[in-house]
């Protein structure tokens, strides 16, 4: 169990996360811009302090769009072992989760509009304690992962 899970997510996941990152960054940037504008106009401090909110949000937006997706992708790994599903994820808090196949009740794949555009799917499997997911696999891969989990979960159940 010491070695990392073998499989990675589809590389297109980074593109998807960048796109959703942009969507998330826009309101943040607007907020920062408004903050700077308000500061410069109403209070009239020095130009450097006035620009702080805008710069801060710019840095944050750059992080969300450029750094987080690739870090996240590099960390995310999964593997369907004989007895369990092995997941590793997290940028700051790195978590390693093992879900015994015998506990899995059912498996879904899900595709959002952006995911569909990029040919990606998310596999979600449910235990009695809630869902777990493997996001952003290429759709055919996701389908085979789903079928494999379902198949293994069924045979483990019989044991």
């Amino acid at each position, binding site marked *: *169990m*010491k070695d990392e899970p073998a499989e990675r997510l589809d590389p297109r996941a980074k593109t998807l996360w960048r796109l959703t990152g942009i969507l998330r960054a826009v309101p943040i940037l607007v907020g920062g811009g408004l903050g700077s504008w308000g500061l410069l106009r109403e209070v009239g401090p020095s130009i450097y302090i006035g620009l702080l909110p805008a710069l801060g949000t710019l840095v944050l937006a750059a992080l969300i769009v450029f750094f987080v997706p690739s870090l996240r992708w590099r960390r995310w790994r999964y593997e369907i072992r004989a*007895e*369990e599903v092995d997941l590793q994820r*997290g940028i*700051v*808090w*790195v*978590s*390693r*989760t*093992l*879900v*015994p*196949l*015998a*506990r899995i009740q059912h498996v879904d794949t899900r595709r959002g509009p952006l995911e569909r555009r990029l040919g990606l799917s998310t596999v979600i499997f449910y*235990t*009695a*304690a*809630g869902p*777990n997911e493997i996001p952003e696999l290429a759709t055919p891969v996701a389908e085979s992962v789903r079928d494999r989990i379902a198949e293994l979960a069924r045979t*483990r159940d019989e044991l």
Partner: protein
Amino acid sequence: MNSETNPEQRPETPPQLRYLHPVAMLIGAIKTIRRWVGAAAIPGIAALAGTGWRLELAILGVIVLVVGSGVWGVLSWRATTYSVSGGAFYLRRGVLQKSERTIPLEHVQSVDTVQGIVQRFFGVVELRVETAGGGTNQPDAALSALDRGAAETLRREIEGSRRVSAEDEEESGPEVIRKLSTRDLLVAGATSGQIGVALSLVAVASQVFDNFLPNNITERIFELLAPRSLTFVLLLALVLALFAWLLSIGGTVLAYSGFTLSRDGDFLYIRRGLLEKREATLPLARIQAVRIVEGILRQPFGLAMLRVESAGYGRGTEDVSVSTTLFPLLPRREAERLLLVAAPEFVTEAPLESLPARALRRYVVRALIPTLLIALVVGLNVWFAAGSVPLALLALLLLPPAALHGFFRYRAAGWALDEDRLVVRNRFISRVTSVVPRRRIQSRSVVESPFQRRAGLATFRVRVASGSGGTAFRVVHLEAFQADALLDRLGPGRPESRARAAGSDAALES
């Protein structure tokens, strides 16, 4: 051959439709009235005020409501029938819109009886049938009034199908494991630590009181109080606290009076309640984890409460929390003995492993950070408002208690792996020891923050089913290699090979 087998099956097959006890009409009527009063009170009063408080209109309204509800009660009683046949429970109801519900008996998860005040007055019970699925807050089928005999018959019919070796057990009947004595009941109330809850209730009540009293009265009371302010305020606070304490004792007495835990085969039965008698069935197979809760007022006296985490249970009952009280108060050292009889899967006496010393700093820091922020905000506010730095620095007094809290959390934390059971102990306010069998674990994780990684520590977490969702148990800041070992050893596999692995793996023992 057919002619011979048919007569044997016949007495079973025709669904024998049964009606509720006639008291159901009254209960239905009361429910309808309550619903309408809730919905119509404010518009009704507004309309009355608009017409200049015509009393006749109000009386007419009330009469219409009562008569209408009565008629509705009778009609819905006539429309409600239930039956058990062909391995399923059927419930038909609805005056205008008929509905028919079928619950396969093997899906029935529990059959509970509840006795409200009206039901008690007439000596009938409400019977609730719950299934494992669904996520609503309503029981899947509720029969509002049955006499004891009918309820017992129905319970037997429903549960009978699930008990394989029913015959032996039914002769002996449920065996009482433990009863809560009156003394223990009062002690439980006095140490319940719900003073806070009761206190906030009192506060809300006084607020409401304040709003409804005419202004000049409140003002006059204040004038009366003003001269003796400090002593009086302290006294008032003391009286309020005492009142809240009595209230919390009262609440416990209401809920736990006559608490009896008994077991019959694979089922636990919990009976409790003073005004509203409750009877709950808890299948042993549904229990996911047991918690031994030592409240802060109870721990010094060596007392504890037992709770169970159970899957798909606890919906529809008043205590909506999915963890159910298994026993409200008992000496801590007798907990294992009770579990041995009630739920032997959860008995453990393994000594707990405490956390490494370097985890202490992290517990304290973690407790200090949010408190520091609060102290900062409070201090700045005081500084701006009062303009005095020494006064503002008083906010720092918040820090030592927070650090102490972190220390106590560290000291309480511990874990053990006892054969196939994970034992986790931690504290927020109460010290809670949780026992989770390996086969109940739905997923397990090791989580590391950058700080933890640098110190070689990690957080280990397991999730179990609870209610219709899940709940997590955590060991925060244990040795990273121990967390990895736990991750490994609590996985699926044959117990023998695990036991051998446990013997050879000295890392975990030291």
